């Protein structure tokens, strides 16, 4: 060991280095997530696909036990859901969401984070939750002035009129 005075000076320096190290890296260096002129667009859904139901005929219904005579015959399985997103006419996302669950009877979900340059952009989203049908069941088009660092969401809510951009 060193002489007490020298040892104390050494200890002060080492404790100081410890404090400086912790104090600095607890907040610095500043982390830059995205460049200045960029905004984030989150394309995310959590939605149940359609089921391919069929109306039972009277004959079929009669054959069923009384307590099971539901007019519609629905399989457990749900349809995939198709999604497309264009920005300024250019296709950015084409995706098919599959239902979750062992029997493909659960919700279909997606979450995609897309970086877009700020400015006026035309967004068009299309969704079809029954792939047996032709075309698109839900379509939303909007021209938005996107600000830098803005976080936009494209989601679907059946009670709020389907697709929305926020």
């Amino acid at each position: 060991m060193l002489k007490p005075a020298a040892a104390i000076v050494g200890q002060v320096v080492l404790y100081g280095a410890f404090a400086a190290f912790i104090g600095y890296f607890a907040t610095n260096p500043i982390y830059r997530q995205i460049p200045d002129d960029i905004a984030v667009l989150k394309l995310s859904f959590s939605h149940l696909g359609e089921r391919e139901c069929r109306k039972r005929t009277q004959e079929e219904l009669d054959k069923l036990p009384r307590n099971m005579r539901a007019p519609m015959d629905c399989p457990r399985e749900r349809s995939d859901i198709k999604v497309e997103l264009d920005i300024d006419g250019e296709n950015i996302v084409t995706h098919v969401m599959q239902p979750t669950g062992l029997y493909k009877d659960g919700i279909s979900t997606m979450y995609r984070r897309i970086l877009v340059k700020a400015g006026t952009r035309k967004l068009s989203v299309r969704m079809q939750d029954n792939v047996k049908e032709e075309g698109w069941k839900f379509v939303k088009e909007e021209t938005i002035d996107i600000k830098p660092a803005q976080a936009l969401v494209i989601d679907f809510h059946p009670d709020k009129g389907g697709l929305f951009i926020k």
Partner: protein
Amino acid sequence: MKTGAAIHPLVQVPFQRCEEAFDRFFGGDHNPLRHLGAMGLFLLWIIVGSGLYLYIVLDTGVEQVYSSIGYLSEEQWYFGGILRSLHRYASDGFILVMMLHLVREWAYGRYTGFRFYSWITGIPLIWLAFVSGIGGYWIVWDQMAQFSAIATTELLDWLPIFSEPSARNFIAPDAINDRLFTLIVFIHLGVPILLLATLWAHVHRISRVDYLPSGKLMRGTLLTLLLLALLKPALSDIPANLATVATETRLDWFILFIHPLTDLTSPAIIWALLFSLTALLTVLPFLSRRKAAPVAVVDPANCNGCTRCQADCPYAAVTMAKHPTRRTYQVAVVDEALCASCGICAGSCPSSTPFRSQETLHTGIDMPQFPLNTMREALEQRMSALSGQTRIVVFGCDHGADVSQVASTDTAVLSLICAGMLPPSFVEYALRTGADGVMIAGCRQGGCEYRLGERWTVERLNRQREPQLRGKVPAERLHVSFVSANDGKILAHDLTEFRARIESDQHLSNKLQPYLRRNAHHA
């Protein structure tokens, strides 16, 4: 493992040098690098103490968390604010100390054999520590929290855990709710409790755990953290706003470094890295080809059940049971799975005295790879070969300075498994059978491979612990050096000084009465 065996000396030597440099300023007992586990526990108590206060004042509503924490820093900076800063900086210190502790144990090759259990139980601690830390930052609900919450959930969503992406919880300002916040607080409380429970398991096979650093080291550390808290109080960023992205955030790099790393690579790479590192740490003990040394063996015929070996064993490997032949007596029993093969118990046994006249020395508890009888024979044989004016016997330790370097015509050396294996009666024996001086080269303070060897050696020689060095042994003829494997020069220097001291000291006529075992036996 070949590569492991090749790498860890590359880290061990620099680590050891740093530790020894710290010794110069702190001394072994107060050296933080020698007590990293205890430092971790101390920081954890600071975290728990300050955290309890933060929890009391915290309002867990989404709207209220930010202001209730901010209130501490602004209105109550002299108390709540300081506790908040302590909570943050002690957490960063904890992560730092934990990582150093991990690297140190690895570098010293301390992950196999009897240490397997400590090593394996250490691995979940790393995960728990980071989960607690990351969760803690979310509670502030400022921009850094928002960034971390989104980055973490996006990372988690790469794994097939949730049926609905968890990142959807933070997708828009109205997505988040009070219930989620209560859950986050609950996790930040629950995971540390799990961490404490795992820590209990981590140390429970060790006896006399280094639960807390020395008072001096604790005061120094606390004072340092308090000063840091005053000079650079922990503050919140601007409030979280899910309608925007924080382009630039401050970041706690100790805890949140994983987010930039994910941005730089990809979730797949990060998970592969995390899982393979965890797997690597887990299999490391199995890859080692180091052979386990034989464990201590009890000879009931020479054991009187005094429990000294139980008291001295650093790994709680000795328990007491009913003696097989002597009624009302106990006998020591060694648990092979726990035994570190250190020999400290052999040094503690009252039967371990070379003055016993039997041809073969038997003791109560002994090491098959280096029995006390072999130790006595080697000592007698090497001493009989000595010549010169001042004959010195040096007892060393296989893990400390290499004593064979100082062997010469007037110096006999004997390296033990651990200095703690030396029964003090051997010192007296050497002095009474022809040695002019005995030197013991133990490890540096706090540097014992088996944790407690150097401590017990000193206490036994200072007559503070059984078996004590007998009172008749003159202190001038005994010298203890604390030397690590890097201290060969210090050892040689100490020996030269010791010899010169003996030679120059006029009062040293106090030689002990000679003892001749074989004559005594035949008489």
